């Protein structure tokens, strides 16, 4: 097996090797501790400011707090602000949010989760109905990591603040950042992002937040990141993150158009007798989730893996927790839940590979179906 067709880019992406080389070269020359006061350290400190402003893109009146990953960004937001009353979120959140909220719940804070509509977007009316004067924090994922459903977070944030202007609005933007055009509304207080989903390095994330918001420190130490997140900055990761994001931002529309074609190849090419598309039409074009109804996604994943085609599943094949928490929140069809596979793209995915993968997916699903259903 020589060639690998990688279609699990929502899990992680291949690093942008050329930019990684540039970033490594930069790092070799600028290895000084950014907190030190000699010339080298001050230069790195200035560069960090530049890289961070690159991460803001077209956003105004926001600042960047560096973190080690999307999960840390989410945790910083939740454990910093969910202190009293109730917290409103959705059934479609990543585990970094969901499990943190379950932890907060143990401290006696009420957690209210809004329903999802078919496809995985939040049911907005249900969300708004859960917010009241005691709500201290609202978190709504921007792009659902399993189905690609997009929540219009600017609109949602504006409406949330109309209902309760004093609550904090957070969004997990890990699957949206650098992929879909978005200038955050002033009502989005906090926004979590991660580098390795767009060609950067694992271990690099950020929390984008409103300039005037005081975020309680999550990691205490030498006072880096305005005291919010101490620890010597991950300069190499940040430099690469800034570079890959800048390029993603420049090409955001042309990339999206390309993804739209790839998604179309999958949704129109898969055998409709075997598969049901779960992702909504108006969802992110970077992710297509479908179910081989009656079959098992993990088995298909293994069969394709043997042919050098890597796709994701909706869930870790598990006998204890067999189904995706997110997808099972809007459908109870066990056969559908069992068969979930997720195909996700990056700008370097090419059409021919996707066509071939769809063909093999159909072939293997048919083969498996023949074996299962006598």
């Amino acid at each position, binding site marked *: 097996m020589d060639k690998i067709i990688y279609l699990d880019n929502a899990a992680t992406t291949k690093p942008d090797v050329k930019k990684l080389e540039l970033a490594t070269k930069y790092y070799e020359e600028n290895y000084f501790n950014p907190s030190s006061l000699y010339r080298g350290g001050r230069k790195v400190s200035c560069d960090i400011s530049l890289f961070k402003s690159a991460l803001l893109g077209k956003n105004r009146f926001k600042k960047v707090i560096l973190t080690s990953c999307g999960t840390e960004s989410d945790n910083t937001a939740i454990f910093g602000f969910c202190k009293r009353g109730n917290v409103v979120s959705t059934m479609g959140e990543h585990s970094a949010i969901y499990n943190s909220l379950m932890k907060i719940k143990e401290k006696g804070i009420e957690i209210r989760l809004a329903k999802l509509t078919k496809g995985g977007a939040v049911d907005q009316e249900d969300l708004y109905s859960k917010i009241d004067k005691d709500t201290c924090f609202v978190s709504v994922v921007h792009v659902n990591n399993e189905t690609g459903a997009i929540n219009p977070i600017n609109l949602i944030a504006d409406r949330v603040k109309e209902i309760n202007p004093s609550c904090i609005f957070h969004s997990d933007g890990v699957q949206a950042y650098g992929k879909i055009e978005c200038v955050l509304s002033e009502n989005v207080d906090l926004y979590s992002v991660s580098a390795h989903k767009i060609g950067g390095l694992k271990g690099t994330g950020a929390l984008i937040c409103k300039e005037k918001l005081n975020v309680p420190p999550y990691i205490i130490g030498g006072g880096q990141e305005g005291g919010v997140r101490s620890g010597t900055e991950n300069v190499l990761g940040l430099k690469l993150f800034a570079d890959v994001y800048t390029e993603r931002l420049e090409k955001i529309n042309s990339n999206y158009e390309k993804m739209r074609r790839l998604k179309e190849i999958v949704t129109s090419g898969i055998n409709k007798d075997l598969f049901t598309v779960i992702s909504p039409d108006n969802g992110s074009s970077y992710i297509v989730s479908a179910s081989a109804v009656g079959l*098992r996604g*993990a*088995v298909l994943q*293994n*069969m394709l*893996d*043997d042919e050098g085609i890597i796709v994701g599943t909706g869930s*870790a*094949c*598990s*006998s*204890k*927790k067999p189904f995706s928490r997110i997808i099972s929140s809007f459908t109870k069809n066990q056969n559908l839940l069992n068969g979930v596979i997720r195909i996700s793209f990056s700008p370097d995915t090419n059409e021919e590979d996707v066509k071939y993968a769809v063909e093999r997916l159909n072939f293997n699903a048919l083969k498996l179906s023949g*074996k*299962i259903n*006598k």
Partner: protein
Amino acid sequence: MKDAIIVRYCEIHLKGKNRSFFERLLVESLERALKGIKHSFKTINTRYLIEDYAEEDYSLIMSRLSKVSGIHTLSPAKVVDSNFEEIKDCAIKMVAGRRGEFKVNTNRADKKFPMHSVELSREIGAVLLDNYAPNIKVNVINPEFVLNIDIRECGDTLIYTDVIKGVGGLPIGSSGKGMLMISGGIDSPVAGYMLAKRGMRLEAIHFHSYPYTSEAALDKVKTLAKMVAEYSGGIKLHIVKFTHIQEEIHEKCPDDLMITMMRRFMMRIAEKVGKENGCQAIITGESLGQVASQTIESITTSNAVVSMPMLRPLIAFDKLEIIEISNKIGTYETSILPYEDCCTVFLPKFPATKPKMEAVLKAEKALDVEALIDEALKNVEVIAY
């Protein structure tokens, strides 16, 4: 004064003329467990003494010894010359920092020692009270800790307070060799442990159904086999590719008999691989009535294909009792990792809980049993732990 670990064995003293055979096996087990750690080894009457190890290796030695079958108890001890002054100094050091009610217990094997055992206990007890009262108090009926003084004939005295329970049972190798059918669940590693405890050497066999089960599930089985190997003094794990057999059964046989038929194939293969490797029994983690394949009827139909003795140490155990042992031997957390342990893709909705032998035999006629088994046997991966 130097450190030592006292190792006491169990049951071996019951074995009349075979005693030296059991003792030799236990010594072998001990040496295998302590391989790579600097130490010396001494026999005193019905006990062993581990000495001359580096202080930092103590925890490692105790952890390894806690997995050796045949060991009844372990005691970290101090060894001093058999004279009153040394015994007294050592006792004072040993009891430092302790609180509660205690007694001193002396065993005077060396009859040349000038004081009688009761006398020595009393004297040492008095010295300890002088040093540490009111933190400690004598209670000879129901003490919270006991300071044991063991005056050996060789001129050494062992002093210890703690007695730590070992695995128990018989030394590995004293009860032949068995083939453990290991699935990746909670029960089979416990079954393996229990027979290792009774001195049985182990090999293990696992039936893998890739792509219907994942590589992660197989890794889990390997991890479990390795854990059991620490008790059984090594394990040879045989991994059999079972996918084709499953597909054939699914295609050609009635759905409700799927599991019974699968079990029959597994047993036959386990027996063949077992015989080739010198095993005298097959071990399973079956517990009566736990699942469809473990009812007495299912056990009867699957048992019928083998002639080797089937050992089912957990047959009368409740799940919670099995989980308790699983926790004790450290396999539980791995066993519950969420990967499917046997193929559920083909699992019928309503498996037969009381399969009839005639129906099973009839269903099996649709398959070329021998050819399928030969094919599976051609492709067995073996890993030694």
